[in-house]
């Protein structure tokens, strides 16, 4: 079986083989209850030093998971250097050590305020994120050396695209501190564009046998695959192999006008691969 076939199985596509394997996946289409199932999910929010999460929403609307998060960079020293990270997440708790996650995502709004005095872009993302393994010694309570991969729909403040155009990308990184607020990039793939309000299925999968991560994006009749190989050791487990659905914001430190990022997105038909 070639790489694409393996990946098709993991994605759970319309191929016979894919359909057989997909039955082992766990799927939430958010229509079995009017609330988020506690046996399947837990909410989380987090901001790095100087980051401020203010407005946020996480609930079921029209049988979809609706999420909105607004974050500001507001360091005490009014810096114009660097940026903060903030996220508003739902963490899956149904499948231990999941190797993949895909979902249909509609990003309804993406607001990013540019900063004239800091070259760092401000970015808002609707994304699927996971820690998959540890490339070091897997210290307890630390994400140091954890390897993560994420597939995301995003808008950057330095975008030259049309106002309604969003980018899609896959990225792989290795955490360089305990909380993984800093990391070393191991690779990334651009995956085209999508318009605000347009539904797109995206996915991220760990293909350990071939030492790479796979990313997918699908329209109604087209499925495209993207791969990021890695060379780091993957024999250790991550300290916490979370797989998350989230609005994630990177906001440039900016003074005297503070920067902000806000993302609004719906998630549906989340498919978790064991």
């Amino acid at each position: 079986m070639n790489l694409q076939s393996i990946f098709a199985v993991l994605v759970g596509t319309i191929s016979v083989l894919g359909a057989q394997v997909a039955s082992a996946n766990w799927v939430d289409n958010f229509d079995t209850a009017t609330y988020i199932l506690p046996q399947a999910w837990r909410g989380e929010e987090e901001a790095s030093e100087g980051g401020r999460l203010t407005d946020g929403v996480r609930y079921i609307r029209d049988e979809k998971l609706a999420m909105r998060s607004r974050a500001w960079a507001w360091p005490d020293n009014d810096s114009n250097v660097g940026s903060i990270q903030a996220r508003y997440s739902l963490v899956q708790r149904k499948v231990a050590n999941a190797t993949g996650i895909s979902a249909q995502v509609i990003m309804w709004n993406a607001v990013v305020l540019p900063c004239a005095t800091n070259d760092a872009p401000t970015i808002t993302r609707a994304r699927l994120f996971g820690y998959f393994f540890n490339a070091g010694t897997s210290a307890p309570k630390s994400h140091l050396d954890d390897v993560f991969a994420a597939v995301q729909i995003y808008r950057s403040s330095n975008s030259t695209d049309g106002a309604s155009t969003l980018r899609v990308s896959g990225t792989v990184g290795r955490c360089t501190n305990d909380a993984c607020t800093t990391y070393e990039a191991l690779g990334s793939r651009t995956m085209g564009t999508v318009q605000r309000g347009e539904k797109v299925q995206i996915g991220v999968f760990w293909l350990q046998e071939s030492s790479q991560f796979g990313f997918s994006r699908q329209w109604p009749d087209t499925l495209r695959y993207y791969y990021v190989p890695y060379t780091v050791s993957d024999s250790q487990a991550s300290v916490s192999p979370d797989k998350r659905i989230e609005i994630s914001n990177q906001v440039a430190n900016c003074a005297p006008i503070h920067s902000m990022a806000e993302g609004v997105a719906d998630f549906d038909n989340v498919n978790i691969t064991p």
Partner: protein
Amino acid sequence: MKGLKSVALPAAAAAILAGHAPGAFAFPCAMFCDDFSAATYILPQKWYGEEETTSDGQQTESWRVIVNGQLRIQSKAWADNDTNSGFANARNSLLARPKVHNSKSMSGTVTMRSASATPCATNETPSVARARLFGYFFNVGSAVPTSHIDDVFATVQLYRSSTSPYPPGTLRVAGIVGRCTDASCNRFETLGTASMGTVEVDTPLRLSMYWRGYPYYAFSMTRRLPDQQQADDYTVTIPFGERHESISPDRRLEVSSQIAHCSPQRAMADGVADFDEVYVDY
């Protein structure tokens, strides 16, 4: 215990309590305050959000937004379903950005829109959904850095318990003062409480709390309904006064919950509340 009306209050308290006179609420104010009408979003120069769960609690639904010129907070939280002992905590909070020691008072209008807490047949611990004003005021121990241990907190709250004898829609009102007994204040010793009656959901209630300090060693807590001329006053006396500053004198608006661990049926607490006309003395 009721009855502090005859005691003259210091200026800061008088300013806070000015909000209790109908029509006396004027913005902008000289202190830290917010009526959530200046923008359609939460002002980052005044506030930041925070979600927290402890003891295997998990928060699922969450709202923290401006709705019709008020701050709306929702928190739905669940506990474990593999034990029938103990409980989890969860909160969805908005914290005032200024961290000012010696801040003595806080007030706000709280309208609880809904509150539910599922009972558990196999755990006597009640589940509770609350909308509340909360603050750490001072430390009565040795003020250990990065620890809330021995911090004294006060809260005035509307709440619904899974063991409530009242009809659906009726909430209890209470003031509580406690001393943290662990670093993150997940555990605490209750120093005093004030039972402040009941109120129905969707009814705005003006709440305040004020640390009276030496020689009273007491928190004044008040409630007032919109059509009420005079606030009802309550006092919670504690056996000591401030010794050190709190490690972090947070002032929070929040929906918080206590959820009983319950097996096999998982227990839940869900609260939705609007907050308005918030004052903190700084």
